[in-house]
Structures are given as C-alpha cells and as structure tokens.
C-alpha cells in the first residue's frame, strides 16, 4: 500500500488521530476557503455590494474608524461592558454554584427559578432593566450578567456535583471538618471545570453585547453596528461583527491557556 493511500485511509477512518501538521493545514485551508468564498461572492458580483461588503470595504471601514481613534474607543467601551458584566456574574455564580453543587438543599431551592429564568429572552428584559436599573453602564452590565449568570450557575453546580464523593470521604478521614471540605476539596477539585465554564460563557457574553448596547450607549461595537444598520452600512456592520467575533475568540483562548497553566495537574 502506498504511503499516500495510507494517509487517505487514515483520514477516512473514524477516530484515527492525524499528524499535527495535517490538522493545522486543514485549519488554515478552512480559513482560506471562507475568505475565498467571501471574495468570490462580493467581487464576483454574485451578491450586490449593498448586501455584502467586499473584504477591502470592511478593512477600509476599519481603517477609517481606526484613524480617528474611535475604533479603539468602541472596542474599549465594549470590552469594559463585557468584562465587568462577566466578572460580576462569575464572582456571584462560582461560589453560589459551588454551594448548589455541594448542598442538595440549596440545589433544590435554586433549581426551579434558575431553570425557568435561564430560558427567558434577554431582549425582552431590556425595557424592564431600564425601569429597574437605569440607563448607565449598570444597565449594559446587567444585560451581560443576565445572559451568562444562570448558565454559569448551572454549569458550575454540575461541575461541583461531579466531584467524586470518594475525595470528600478521604478528606474526612484525614481530619477535614464540613467547612473545610468546601474550601479544601470541592473548590480545588472543581477548578478545571469552573475554568472550562468561564471559557464557554465568556464567549456567550460577547454575543449579548449588541443587546446590552441597545440603550444609552454612546460608544461600543454593538452601538456602531446598530447605528450602521440605519443606512445599511454593511461594511461597518461586518466590521463590528468581525471584531466582536475576534474578541470572543481571544478571550476564549485566554481561558484555554489559563486552564492549561493553572490546572496542569488535571488530565
């Protein structure tokens, strides 16, 4: 059997591992294909410019905004909203989630409202948030919190509930009191899962940015994309979406690396 046909066979074999270069190559190819399809559609004139900007249009829009420094300002404003919202949400959800995962009673009390609320549309809450919270940064942050808090809570409590009971028993026989168990066993044991949760949910936080900036924002990527919709400036809409996507990828990777560094002990 020739070496090429063997590789082909490996590619077609379920669950066969492939060499790193091939995987990286495929990933690169996939980006190129996306870019190529975009170019073909926009430059090829298959889709009118009004509906789909060309890559150069988007870069030009980015350049235009970058030149007068407003792009950075928009990014800064959005990053602030997402990070503050995400930090507050995580700071509440992680301890509460650990409690939920540790104590059956807390879980029984919190499960019903949490499972109900996490399926509610954030968008519908925007007018209510204005009434209850106002129109400042708090309101934008509240949208992000509402978007991720309940998901985090459920995920963290699942992680904590998944910690082996044997570890807890072992810690008792080593002299742990009930109080110690949470701090010295369930907490550290949940850490990798908690970081995974943070990684996934920070991605979601970015998707709520546009909703968060519906109200009273004067800068931000969601704000410029909303503004660009009035007048159908598809190049700016694309730019804003792309920057949000890239920031989402970036934060995702940050947590991926953090997870690897902090939890080197986990398999």
């Amino acid at each position, binding site marked *: 059997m020739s070496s090429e046909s063997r590789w082909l066979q490996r590619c077609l074999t379920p669950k066969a591992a492939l060499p790193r270069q091939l995987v990286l190559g495929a990933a690169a190819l996939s980006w190129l294909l996306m870019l190529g399809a975009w170019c073909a559609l926009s430059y090829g004139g298959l889709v009118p410019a009004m509906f789909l900007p060309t890559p150069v249009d988007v870069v030009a829009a980015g350049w235009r905004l970058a030149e007068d420094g407003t792009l950075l300002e928009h990014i800064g404003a959005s990053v602030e909203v997402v990070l503050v919202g995400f930090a507050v949400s995580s700071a509440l959800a992680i301890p509460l989630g650990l409690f939920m995962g540790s104590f059956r009673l807390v879980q029984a009390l919190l499960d019903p409202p949490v499972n109900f609320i996490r399926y509610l549309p954030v968008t519908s809450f925007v007018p209510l948030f204005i009434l209850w919270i106002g129109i400042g940064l708090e309101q934008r942050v509240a949208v992000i919190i509402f978007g991720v808090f309940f998901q985090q809570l459920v995920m963290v409590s699942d992680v904590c509930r998944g910690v082996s009971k*044997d570890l807890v028993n072992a*810690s008792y026989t*080593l002299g742990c009191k009930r109080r110690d168990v949470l701090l010295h066993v369930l907490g550290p044991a949940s850490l990798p899962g908690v970081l995974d949760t943070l990684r996934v949910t920070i991605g979601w936080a970015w998707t709520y940015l546009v909703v968060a900036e519906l109200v009273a924002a004067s800068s931000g990527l969601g704000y410029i994309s909303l503004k660009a919709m009035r007048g159908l400036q598809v190049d700016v809409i694309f730019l804003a979406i792309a920057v949000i996507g890239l920031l989402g990828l970036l934060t995702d990777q940050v947590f991926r690396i953090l997870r690897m560094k902090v939890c*080197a002990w986990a398999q």
Partner: protein
Amino acid sequence: MGAVNLETAPARLQVRNVSLRYPTPTGGTFVALDKVSLEVPDQQFAVIVGPSGCGKSSLLYLTAGLNEPTEGEIVVSGQRVTEPGPDRGMVFQGYTLFPWLTVRQNIEFGLKRRGMPPAQRQEVVDHYLDEVRLRPFADNFPKQLSGGMMQRVAIARALANDPQILLMDEPFGALDSQTRHQMQRLLLRVWEHAKKTVVFVTHDIDEAILLGDRVYVMGARPGRIRQIIDVPLARPRPEDVELAPEFIALKRQIVDLLHDDLHRIDP
C-alpha cells in the same frame, strides 16, 4: 463529638452487634450487615474477605464514621464512633489522592488541617516518603504516577496522620499482580515499623493470608461473619511463604468456605 469514654475497653476496635439496612427503591429494606461483632486488639492486622456485596466496604465505612449503623455501635480506642476523624485513617480502593496537590502536599494534607507547624510537617512527610520509597517523586502530581505509586502515597497520607487504626478497602484491587506483590511486601514492612492496628479488606485469599494475623470470612445476604481464622505464620513472613504447606492448607480452607457460600451474585 458525642464521645463516650469506656476506659475499660480492651480492644482497639470493637464492633458490637452492628446492623446496616438500606431502604430499597421498592419501599422495602435491604440488610447489608446483620448483627456483626468483632474485636481487633491493638497492633493486630485483621483481614476481611468475602464475596462481592457482602458488606465489607460498608463495615469499613461505618468504622470510619462515614456512615451510621442502623443498630449497634462501633468503639475505637474506647470512644464510640459518631463521625469521621483523623484517628481512623482510610485507604480506599479507588484512587482518592487530591489531584491538585503534589505527592508531598497530599501527604501533608491532614497535618495541615491539624495545624502542625511547617518544620515538623516536613519531617513527618519526609519520613513517610522514605517509607513508601517515593522521595524522588515528592513534587510530582498524582497524574504522573502509576497506580501502585498512587496507592503508596495514599498509605503514606493515611499513616502520616498517625491514626489509631488504619482501614484499607481493597487498596491493591486495581493493581496488576506483580505490582500487587511488591505492594504487599511494602505494606508489611511499613506496618512492622509503624505498629498500627489495621483492618484490611480484600478479595484475594493469598493476600489475606500473606498479610493477616487473623482473617474474617464473611458471607452475603445478609452480610455476616461466617468464620474467624487465625493465621499462625511467623513474622516476618518469607518471600516464598505462599508455597509453604500451612499457607496452602489455610488457603484451601478459605477457598472451600467461600465456595460453599451459596449466596452467589452471578448464577
């Protein structure tokens, strides 16, 4: 701790008429242990063998204070057991090392909970690292260890706490037979140095005879002690003790006992 001091108690561990019943899903009760009594004198190596599901683990968990008997009581060093404590160290069948702590930190865990000063802690840990021959691996994380090494750390961790009694629930059950053999030898050596009272649960009859001063053979449904067999082999037991005629006779006796246990799990 609702401790009742019974200074007159002669044995290190007294299990008095202990029964354990679990509610079944259908509303009945399942008798896991039925009026079990036994006494283990100080520094004795007691081994419990019996078919799967006869309640061996249940008995150890009760002794550790991780569960409460439905009837009867368990007394360790004259104190009635009501909750888990570091005076009863336990080594579990599964791997229960804390994966986020290094070997050293795992062994240190109980000492830290007790508030032992660092210098003294280091001394104790070093001693037990040497005992289980893991000094070069002190700073490894559990995931970097083989199964046998992990159980050695678990033994060191339990012993470092200086418990009055050491409970071991099939600690070598998951190891391959060569590793298992080495571990048995290592345990014997460590035990002879530490002079602890041990209650050791196993499925392996060779292991029971090799290690024990006395073997309790249990029967299932309901869990009961069927026979108590003293092992008259001199200590330290030679390498080839398993080929000695007394050993073989004891083995045959226990095999027969277990064979005619009609309460089989598998048909």
